[in-house]
């Protein structure tokens, strides 16, 4: 808002100048998702009772496909300043996350009809909730203002609260929804208070102006008491994001919510919500809170240090507690906490110094690999089951790998990816994250980063145990209740699982394209201060060369496009 007024030099408040035609492009991915959601609302409203609702899944999946295509079409027409009165960005970073969220949403929704048929809960609300949530995640990834961050966060979260309590006959769903809602609304309240304090100190809600004004306030030291407000504000905003990504001190809700929610919904909420929150978190951290004082790093007091400990705690707690679980959904919940820890490790490495900003591409790649692996894993869980229930525990899936070869094969791919075993996406993702951390540690001579990377490697080795235990159960145990489980012979679910597995393998065997995309996304990340902008301009080519050299030493991989940056 302020940005636009300063641009036009218009002194009056309350007057809005229409955005120029090109700016509307920033709305396209999110608006398509919202339009598809509203279309599904209308179509479902006039649904003929007694017939199946599979076609809603197809409409949604096609709509999500259109969103991905629109991101692809917009890829080279980005704008290097915030649009819509400083509310949204249109850059490759946002488009990357928009495409990721839409792909995950579409793939999760393809698994839904079969699941709903098992559960006898064939209602249209599932589709619209997921679609609205996807549009929230897309706007969150494109947010250029705290207001957009907040509204998009709620647009993303509120449907997911409903999704958690979707199984109306199951009391566990109600409990999961209540826990998620109360804690989610609480964390949103904390985050909002942080935003209010930041607004009070800086006088603006635009991320870029917050960055500029915070630096000014900190430099001049004009506001003695203001510094306490800044620190409190930053911590509260961080805690809101940490809740959404399920990083350790704010992870309590995760296992309960994941266990009580319907499986395809969990696949959605553990990936899209996390991706949206990570995207907005990167925006806020690197655009608004980029001042060296707030950034900290190396035993300073800044968000890098806070995230450093969150990362370590998430990796250790997530992996150790996951080992002890009997329920696969709970195990995956704790493993998603561990994954949040690995992703935070990438952010810590990239945030340690302004010149390491480009290491964020490992974060983007890791999120992509995590997304397809997780949507697929929960897809397999919802693929196997019968009326009124689906598989959940290790006992339930015992021996199913041989009985249902397709499900077993798919589960194998997704578990290998989650465990980080080559040739899957998870391996490459972990490799780049760990290497970024080691590089930063070596270049700066800080042993803390090396230590954290070693910890990450050790915990991921521990993680391999419980992922592989799933496969051991599926292939080497005798089925306990032989006639209990059946596989849904749903073509759409098979298609979704197949796409997830194909992408997981493709990202593992030929990572160059996706790596190129994530690198372009980071290089085109808008709104960063001048120091980082310089790095983006020069380092894009440099980073590409380093990575390509490593790539060539490993295997011959196809080259992506020449970067724009």
């Amino acid at each position, binding site marked *: 808002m302020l940005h636009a007024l300063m641009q036009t030099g218009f002194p*009056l408040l*309350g*007057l*809005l*100048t*229409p955005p120029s035609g090109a700016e509307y492009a920033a709305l396209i991915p999110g608006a398509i998702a919202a339009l598809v959601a*509203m279309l599904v*609302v*209308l179509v479902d*409203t006039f649904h003929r009772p007694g017939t199946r609702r599979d076609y809603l899944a197809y409409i949604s999946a096609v709509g999500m496909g259109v969103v991905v295509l629109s991101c692809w079409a917009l890829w080279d027409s980005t704008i290097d300043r915030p649009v819509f009165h400083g509310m949204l960005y249109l850059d490759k970073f946002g488009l990357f996350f928009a495409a990721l969220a839409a792909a995950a949403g579409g793939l999760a929704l393809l698994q839904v009809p079969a699941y709903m048929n098992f559960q006898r809960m064939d209602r249209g609300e599932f589709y619209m909730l997921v679609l609205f949530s996807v549009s929230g995640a897309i706007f969150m990834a494109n947010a250029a203002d705290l207001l957009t961050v907040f509204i998009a966060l709620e647009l993303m979260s509120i449907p997911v609260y409903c999704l958690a309590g979707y199984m109306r006959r199951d009391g566990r769903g109600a409990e999961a929804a209540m826990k998620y809602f109360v804690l989610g609304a609480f964390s949103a309240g904390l985050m909002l208070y942080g935003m209010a304090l930041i607004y009070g100190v800086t006088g603006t809600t635009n991320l870029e102006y917050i960055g500029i004004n915070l630096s000014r306030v900190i430099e001049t030291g004009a506001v003695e008491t203001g510094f306490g407000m800044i620190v409190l504000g930053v911590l509260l905003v961080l805690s809101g994001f940490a809740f959404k990504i399920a990083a350790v001190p704010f992870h309590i809700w995760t296992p309960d919510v994941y266990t009580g929610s319907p499986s395809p919904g969990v696949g959605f909420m553990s990936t899209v919500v996390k991706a949206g929150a990570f995207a907005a978190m990167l925006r806020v951290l690197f655009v608004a809170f980029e001042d060296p004082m707030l950034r900290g790093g190396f035993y300073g007091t800044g968000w890098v240090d806070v995230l450093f400990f969150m990362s370590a705690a998430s990796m250790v707690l997530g992996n150790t507690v996951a080992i002890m679980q009997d329920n696969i959904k709970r195990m995956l919940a704790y493993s998603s906490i561990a994954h949040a820890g690995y992703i935070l490790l990438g952010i810590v490495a990239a945030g340690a110094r302004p010149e390491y900003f480009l290491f964020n591409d490992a974060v983007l790649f890791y999120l992509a690999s995590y997304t397809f692996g997780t949507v697929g894993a929960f897809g397999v869980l919802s693929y196997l089951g019968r009326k009124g229930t689906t598989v959940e525990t290790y006992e339930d899936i015992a021996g199913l790998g041989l009985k249902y070869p397709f499900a077993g094969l798919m589960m194998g791919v997704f578990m290998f990816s989650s465990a980080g075993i080559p040739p899957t996406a998870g391996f490459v993702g972990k490799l780049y994250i760990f290497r970024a951390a080691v590089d930063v540690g070596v270049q700066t001579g800080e042993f803390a980063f090396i230590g954290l990377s070693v910890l990450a490697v050790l915990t991921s080795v521990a993680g391999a145990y419980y992922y592989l235990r799933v496969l051991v159960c599926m292939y080497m145990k005798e089925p306990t209740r032989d006639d209990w489980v059946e596989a849904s012979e749903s073509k759409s679910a098979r298609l979704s699982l197949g796409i997830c597995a194909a992408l997981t393998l493709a990202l593992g065997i030929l990572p160059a394209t996706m790596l190129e995309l994530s690198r372009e996304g980071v290089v085109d990340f808008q709104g960063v201060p001048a120091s980082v902008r310089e790095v983006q301009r020069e380092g894009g080519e440099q980073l590409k060369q380093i990575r390509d050299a490593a790539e060539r030493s490993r295997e011959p991989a196809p080259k992506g496009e020449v970067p724009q940056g």
Partner: protein
Amino acid sequence: MQIADYSALMIFLVIALVVAGVITLLANQFGPKNRTRQKAMPYEAGSDPIGSPKQTRFSVKFYMIAISFILFDLETIFVIPWAVAWKQNDVMGHGLYAFGVMFVFVSILTIGLVYEWKQGGLEWD
């Protein structure tokens, strides 16, 4: 506007409270009292009351109506500032844009209303 500008309102409020309080107090103190069981009973249109008023349960239908009310009521906080700024926008030549923005907003709300209607959210029974 300073808080002192509201002093007339405060004085009016205080006088109103004092007058109402004094009259109630006087009636309570000096009025004749003749308590009977019938008079102490809760008033239910003349018929004998059924059960205690403490245990009265409200139907969940009231909740449905209340929630629908809140959701559609809150659109006014967006519509009123828009309406106030309408004239300025029109003069500046952004009338069509401002209209379009509000049209999109109300259209989305209408879809919500259609959904609610068809799902039976507005039916009492």
